[in-house]
């Protein structure tokens, strides 16, 4: 009974860690991003305050120009920091044996480099803009770039990273399954009563198979981002062509639902179920 309570508490803890902590305790974003985000919100608030301020039209326009410039500077800073965060996560992925994954990874890396260059140039250009019309037009250009190029492609990078992070997780979980399998075989060889643990083991194995299948389908969706290159290996020049023509183009490839994010979430849930069973198996084996 005590053991049951103990393992239930551990299982509850694991569930808590897995499902409830990421959004709060772990804080998904770096402090720099959070600060930059606050700056953006503050500058937009100042703009809103100005709208209600009782000023003569000329002063109002002059202030609006400067406040909009500041808001845009803050947006550029936030975008740069967010891009850095994504880039760090992309670079932290372990090397893959899958050539397509590696090809896509270099394409994404090159895209991110080009975004850093764009953002740097935009910062310089913003400082040179004079007058409210020019500032507003700059905002329009930046918005167009985000919609046509940046948002779509960066979201793909984020999803790509997520799926590969989960692939790495599955690798670790597979190793755990093997260890438990070995422990169970040893127990069977010693003619111990292993049926309940064996049943849990099979369920955990099924959980992991499902987790793999789901993540593989997310991976397949991601590899569809890779432009068709039946023969030519990916070189620097055609990778660049891909960036300008394929990945950064206005037309996204046809991606069948469901959302890869949701697939990864479902896969993680299966992994969590497997761990829940691992903990119970470990408890059973310990008592034999």
């Amino acid at each position: 009974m005590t053991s049951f309570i103990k393992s239930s508490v551990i299982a509850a803890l694991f569930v808590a860690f897995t499902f409830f902590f990421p959004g709060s305790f772990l804080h998904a974003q770096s402090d720099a991003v959070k600060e930059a985000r606050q700056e953006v919100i503050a500058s937009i608030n100042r703009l809103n305050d100005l709208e209600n301020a009782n000023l003569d039209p000329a002063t109002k326009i002059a202030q609006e120009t400067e406040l909009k410039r500041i808001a845009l500077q803050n947006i550029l800073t936030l975008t740069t920091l967010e891009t850095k965060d994504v880039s760090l996560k992309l670079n932290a992925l372990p090397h893959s044996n899958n050539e397509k994954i590696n090809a896509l990874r270099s394409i994404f890396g090159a895209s991110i480099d080009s975004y850093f260059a764009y953002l740097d140039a935009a910062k310089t250009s913003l400082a040179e803009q004079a007058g409210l019309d020019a500032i507003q037009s700059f905002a329009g250009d930046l918005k167009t770039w985000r919609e046509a190029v940046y948002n779509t492609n960066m979201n793909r990078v984020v999803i790509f990273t997520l799926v590969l992070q989960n692939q790495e997780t599955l690798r670790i979980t597979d190793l755990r399954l093997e260890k438990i399998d070995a422990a169970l075989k040893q127990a069977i060889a010693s003619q111990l009563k292993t049926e309940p643990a064996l049943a849990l083991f099979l369920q955990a194995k099924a959980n992991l198979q499902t987790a793999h299948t789901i993540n593989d389908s997310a991976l397949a969706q991601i590899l569809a981002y890779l432009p068709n290159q039946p023969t030519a290996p990916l070189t620097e020049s055609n990778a660049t062509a891909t960036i300008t023509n394929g990945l950064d183009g206005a037309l996204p490839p046809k991606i069948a639902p469901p959302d890869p994010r949701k697939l990864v979430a479902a896969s993680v849930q299966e992994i969590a179920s497997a761990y829940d069973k691992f903990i119970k198996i470990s408890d059973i084996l310990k008592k034999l």
Partner: protein
Amino acid sequence: MEDKLISILKTGRSIEPSRAFQERSRRALFAIPSPQRTSESFWHIIVRYTTAKNTRLGFALALATILVMMAINNGISRWNAAGNSANQELLLEAKNIEFKIQLESANYFADSADEVTALLGEIKKPPKGQSTDGLLNKVLF
């Protein structure tokens, strides 16, 4: 722009704005005074769930937090006193795995990208331009 923003916020088919995103957008676009917070804390989530319809989930979340806090305060190693080393290893492994998977981070990026694009639309607008406040308020609230 308005149409796009409204359709995104309303249908959420492609982006599914979270409540936090809607709150942020509302505050950012219309400067509604409210305490600033950089991210939702776990307690905010609990309070929100408890005060909303889903009271049971709110209590479950609160219970889970208490369990986690107890574990942290008392030290997970206490269970090890009974020789529970396998479970300890498993628990640590599970925790490490959680750090590797950054679902929240991925969701944040999608929300933020959309939010910033909407803000750029606001900055782009001339001061005396037609306001979408009324429309957006209708959509959000």
